[in-house]
C-alpha cells in the first residue's frame, strides 16, 4: 500500500488560540452518533462557533480565512477523549497541518496515522505567525517537515516533531497497517510465547 510522502505543506493559515483545547470541543459528542466518519467537517468546533457573541465571528467562520489549510493553536491541543473523530473532522474541514505548542498523546498519534501533520513550535513563533496572518490573511505558510521549519511572509520559525512521526510522514509510512500486516507471523510467534494468549479464551 504505497502512501503519499508528506514533506511540505503549504497553504493559508487560521488560528484557534487557547491552551488545553479538548476533543469534546473540537468535535462535540453528538456528532459521534454515526457509523462512518462522513460529514464530520461540519461539526468541527461546532459549539464554540455557535457560542460566539453577536457581532463577533469565530475564526472558522471568518471569510478572511476561508480556505485555510493550516491550523494554529496553543498547548496540549487535543486533550481528552481518544476519538479519532477529532483529527478526522480537522482533516475533513480542509486542514492538512496543525501548528501548536504541544499535543495530547492520543490525539497526536491519531492525527499522524491519518496523515495530518501536527508540528510543534514555540509560543512566541506561533504568535508571530498569527500576527502576520492577521495582517495578511492570504499569506502563504509552508510547513517543511524535511528542513523542520515553517516559512511565512518572508520569515522563518523552527518546528519540532517527534522523530518517529516525522519519519513516518516524510517517508510515506504514516499509516502503519501495511507494516503491521507484514509482521503478522512474528506476532503469532510472540503470542505463542505468552501463556494467556497461547490458549484461546473461552
Amino acid at each position, binding site marked *: 500500500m504505497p502512501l503519499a510522502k508528506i514533506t511540505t505543506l503549504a497553504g493559508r493559515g487560521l488560528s484557534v488560540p487557547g491552551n488545553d483545547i479538548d476533543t469534546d470541543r473540537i468535535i462535540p459528542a453528538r456528532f459521534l*452518533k454515526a457509523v462512518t466518519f462522513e460529514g464530520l467537517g461540519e461539526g468541527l468546533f461546532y459549539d464554540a462557533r455557535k457560542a460566539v457573541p453577536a457581532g463577533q465571528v469565530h475564526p472558522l467562520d471568518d471569510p478572511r480565512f476561508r480556505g485555510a489549510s493550516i491550523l494554529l493553536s496553543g498547548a496540549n491541543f487535543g486533550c481528552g477523549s481518544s476519538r479519532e473523530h477529532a483529527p478526522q473532522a480537522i482533516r475533513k474541514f480542509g486542514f492538512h497541518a496543525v501548528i501548536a505548542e504541544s499535543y495530547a498523546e492520543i490525539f497526536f498519534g491519531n492525527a499522524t496515522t491519518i496523515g495530518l501533520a501536527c508540528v510543534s513550535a514555540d509560543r512566541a513563533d506561533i504568535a508571530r505567525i498569527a500576527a502576520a496572518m492577521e495582517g495578511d490573511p492570504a499569506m502563504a505558510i509552508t510547513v517543511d517537515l524535511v528542513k523542520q521549519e515553517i516559512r511565512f511572509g518572508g520569515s522563518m520559525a523552527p518546528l519540532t516533531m517527534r522523530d518517529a512521526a516525522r519519519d513516518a510522514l516524510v517517508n510515506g509510512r504514516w499509516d502503519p497497517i501495511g507494516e503491521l500486516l507484514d509482521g503478522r507471523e*512474528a506476532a503469532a510467534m510472540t503470542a505463542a510465547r505468552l501463556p494467556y494468549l497461547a490458549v484461546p479464551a473461552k
Partner: protein
Amino acid sequence: MAQTLFQKVWQAHSVRTLANGQTQLLVGTHLIHEVTSPQAFGMLRDLGLKVAMPHRTFATVDHIVPTDQRTEPFGDPLADAMIKELRRNCAAHGITYFDLASGRQGIVHMVGPEQGITQPGTTIACGDSHTSTHGAFGAIALGIGTSQVRDVLATQTIALAPLKVRRINVEGRLRPGVYAKDVILHLIRTLGVNGGTGFAYEYGGEVFDRFSMEERMTVCNMSIEGGARVGYVNPDETTFAYLKGRPYSPTGAAWDAAVQRWKATASDAGCSYDDLVTIQAGDIPPTVTWGINPGQGIAITENIPDPAKATAADEKSAIEEALAYMKLKAGAPIKGTRIDVAFLGSCTNARLSDFKEVARHLKGHRVAAGVKAIAVPGSQIVGRLCAELGIDQVFRDAGFEWREAGCSMCLAMNPDKLVGDQLCASSSNRNFKGRQGSPTGRTLLMSPLMVAAAAVRGSVADAREVFGVS
C-alpha cells in the same frame, strides 16, 4: 537488572521494531464499543481483511444506550443504528459481545474487570481514552484511535513507542471523607493536565497498598486527565482476590500458575524510574473542580481562584475563560454554589463500593427541592448487586432516579443530558465545555459522596459536614 512492570510487559509483548523506530506491540486483550468501532470494521471491509484473533476481542454497548426505556428500536434512530451495527459486526467476525440481554452489559471499563478479562501482565487496548482504568490490575492498558482499532482487529498489534515511567507514591493515611477520587483530582491539580505526557503512571505507596481494586480503578481511570495514557498499580493479593472465580479467570492449576506469573510481573524492588513523585495522603482534601478542565480543582474549603491574583499571563487567561464559561464568581467560596443536577455514574465512580458508601450516608436524607438527581450503575451486574442489597431503594427513597447501566450523562450521547446552563455535581471524569450534552452546561467533578452531599443541600457542600463524617 531490576525492571518496572511497564518494561517487563512491554518486552514480553514486543513483536519487532518498525522502520520508524516504533514497536509493533502485541495487544493481548482488545475491548470495543459502539462509538469507535464501526468505522474500524468499515476500514477492514474496505481492505478485504479478517479479524486476526477474534477470541481476543470483547464487545459491549455503553455510550449510546438509554438508561430508562431500553426496548428496541431506541427512540433515537442514530443510536439504534449504532447498536445494530455493533451486533452485526460482532456476529460476522465471531466476537464475544455482552449485549443488553446478556445481563453482563455495562461501561466497557467495568465489564472487563467484572468478567475477569482484565488481567495482570497483559496489554489491553480499547478505542476509548479511559482504558487506563484496567491498569489497576497491573496491565498496560491504553486508549487508541479508530485506525488503531482497525490495526488491532486486523493484526492484534499496534505501532507504538515506549513510555517513560513516573512512580507516584501516596504515603500515610487519607483523612475521613477523602476518597480515591480526591486522590486523583489532587494529583491532576498538582501535576497538571499535561504533566503526564510521555509517561505511564505507576501508583503505589501505603494508600494504594490499602486500596480496594475499585478504588485503584478510580485513580487509574483518570490518569488520562493528567495527560498520562497509561496508569497502573502493581498486582498484589488484593488483585488476585478480586480476580478469583471470575468467568474468564483461570481455574485450578492454571490459576496457581497465573498467580505466579502475575507476581513476577510486578516492578522489581530497586528498579529505576524516570521520575518519582511523593504525595502525603494527609494533605489531600475533598476536592471539587470549578473550571473547564480536570486540573482546575480546589479543596471544598477553598475559594474560587481570582484571575487578578494569577502570577502568569497564561494562568490569568485560563481562569478568566473558565469563570466566564462556568458563570462563577472569582474569589467566592465554592461551597454553597447552587446546583441543578446531581449525577452519580461513569466509569470513574459507578461501582458497587461507590453506591454502597453513598447509601450508607444517604439513608434518611432527601434530595433538595429543584435538584434532578440520577444514579446510574456502571454495569448491569452492579445494578443487580445494588438491588440485592437494597441500595437502589435507599437512592429512590432519597429522591434519586435509579437507572440502568451505561455511560449516561458522563458524555450524554444518550437521552441523559444537561439542559441550558444547568450546573451539575458529577462523579464523572471530564468537565470540558459542553461535555454533559448542553453546549452551555456546566460540570463540577467530585467524589460520589460529595455529589450526594450537593444533591441533599442543593448546593456544593462538604460531605463531612452534611453526613457527619469524621
